[in-house]
């Protein structure tokens, strides 16, 4: 008789699969100051200086950064808030990074 072994998934994997992950992506723009962008990231996401600055540099150097991944409703709220702060933010649907 064949024995089926199922690899246990982590709670995070299951949660993300069920929640259909959405990414909050910030794109580079030539206008907004680096210090302003770091301030916004800290304020909107509650990130510390290092993490906010890392994301800001990624936006500046690579043209984009995934700031947050999770459920659609929360991702939409974050994108909306970032757009209120005049950052170029978009919602992307995809596999978790």
């Amino acid at each position, binding site marked *: 008789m064949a024995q089926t072994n199922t690899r246990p998934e982590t709670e995070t994997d299951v949660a993300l699969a069920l929640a259909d992950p959405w990414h909050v992506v910030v794109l580079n723009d030539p206008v907004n100051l680096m210090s302003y962008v770091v*301030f916004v990231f800290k304020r909107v996401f509650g990130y510390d200086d290092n993490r906010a600055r890392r994301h800001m540099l990624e936006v500046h150097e690579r043209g984009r950064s995934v700031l947050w991944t999770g459920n659609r409703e929360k991702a939409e709220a974050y*994108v909306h808030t970032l757009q209120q702060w005049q950052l170029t933010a978009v*919602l992307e649907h995809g596999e978790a990074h």
Partner: protein
Amino acid sequence: MAKRIEIRLALPVVGPLIDRLRPLAEADRDKLAVPVDLRGVEEDLQAHWCDDLVATLGSDLAFFAGLFGEKFRATGTIEFDEREALAVLRACSILRLRLRAGELQEVTDEQLEEGEVDFFRLSEKARGAFTCYLFLASLQENLVRHLDPGIGEG
């Protein structure tokens, strides 16, 4: 009680810049500073999404314009609390984006990002716009540093 912030500006220098910025702050309060990408946003949310962004923009610009009334004309100072400072920050960004899309079109993205704008090569119109652009940047940077002293320009 939110802390008050008072900023003293050099009236002879900043006054003319505000005169130039005022029409930009008072016009088009029902239009977004830049087009927004609504891909991924649920369709039934999209109209409300933009309306809400426009409302925030209008409110931020109205607050900013209101700072430069009689008291500013008499003393060169503007005053607001830390909560209102967030509206000032956003308004500065809106106005910089509008300047970029308007009178600063002759400047490339690269020049703006790298800070390599040759002021004396700009047209007369663009020089005035660029001076306003720099003033707004300075105001934003000073405010950010006041609100979060740990953040420095990279």
